[in-house]
């Protein structure tokens, strides 16, 4: 049962991370296409956005590891 719980946790976390990061990067690509000279700051902001969005899915992954390896 723990395997199932860990798999569900990672799966849902991956879903959230995938959707969130996809939205961030796609908007960044659009903005770079509109304004190629703003590429540097846009890339920087993109990485910061990815860092912020990835926190909770990564916390879900760590919880999944905890479920699998300790309980």
């Amino acid at each position, binding site marked *: 049962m723990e395997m199932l719980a860990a798999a569900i946790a990672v799966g849902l976390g991956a879903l959230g991370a995938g959707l969130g990061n996809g939205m961030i990067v796609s908007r960044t690509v659009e903005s770079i296409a509109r304004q190629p000279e703003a590429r540097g*700051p846009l890339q920087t902001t993109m*990485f*910061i956005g990815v860092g912020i969005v990835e*926190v909770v899915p*990564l916390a879900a992954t*760590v919880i999944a590891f905890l479920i699998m390896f300790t309980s």
Partner: protein
Amino acid sequence: MHASPIIKLGGLSIDLSAVIMLTVTCVIVFVLARLAVRNLSVENPSKLQNFLEWVVEFVHNIVASAMDMRKGKPYISLGLTLILFIFVANLLGLPFAIVTDLPADTKVFGVVLEPTKDLAPGEHSDVLWWKSPTADLSVTAGLALMVFFIIHIQGLRLNRKHYLRHYIEPYWVFLPINIIENIAKPVALAIRLFANIFAGEVLIYAILKAGLFGVPFLAAWQGFSIFVGALQAFIFTMLTMVYIGQATTHEEH
């Protein structure tokens, strides 16, 4: 999974692998920095000097993008320390790990190691001695706590009126939300760094279980982990500077 060499000393649990790895990280960063500034030259810089100058300029750009440089100049050394320390710390767990099989009741400095405490006489426990220090929540929480103190002490010292005002902006009912926001920021910093590096190490452990077939995956994953380590160091430094800028700058409304 491997156990950590925790000893109980005076009521506190101390993780010896974290202590050892933090010391190793400090020594590596110190030696790197000192080697880079030997025989400084303007016309003919050595490769290490060139590299470190690039890092300093990179941190300068991070600070400049977060706040005005007249206020930001003192934080370049903080940013440089954070980015070098966290980057080296993230990389240390990648090349290898040192695990020892210890019998029951092994003593270090006269104190029994926690994982070996309740073992039957013939059993061994795997204890992990070499890992990334940032794969330990205590270490990342320590870094986040240090940044938390810097943000709020600087906010109080340099910008007291506007810093205290922003807790009740835009309305006084937002006070609990603003307090939670200020607590959530360092907590998120700690969890972000810990989760990224810890998940990387657990995946290395999982890939190794596949034996020889896992070697190409391991190579790819270690390469990706180098990128993740650099990215997390950059994000930690960048967010620190952004939070310091928010606390110390008076914005014209």
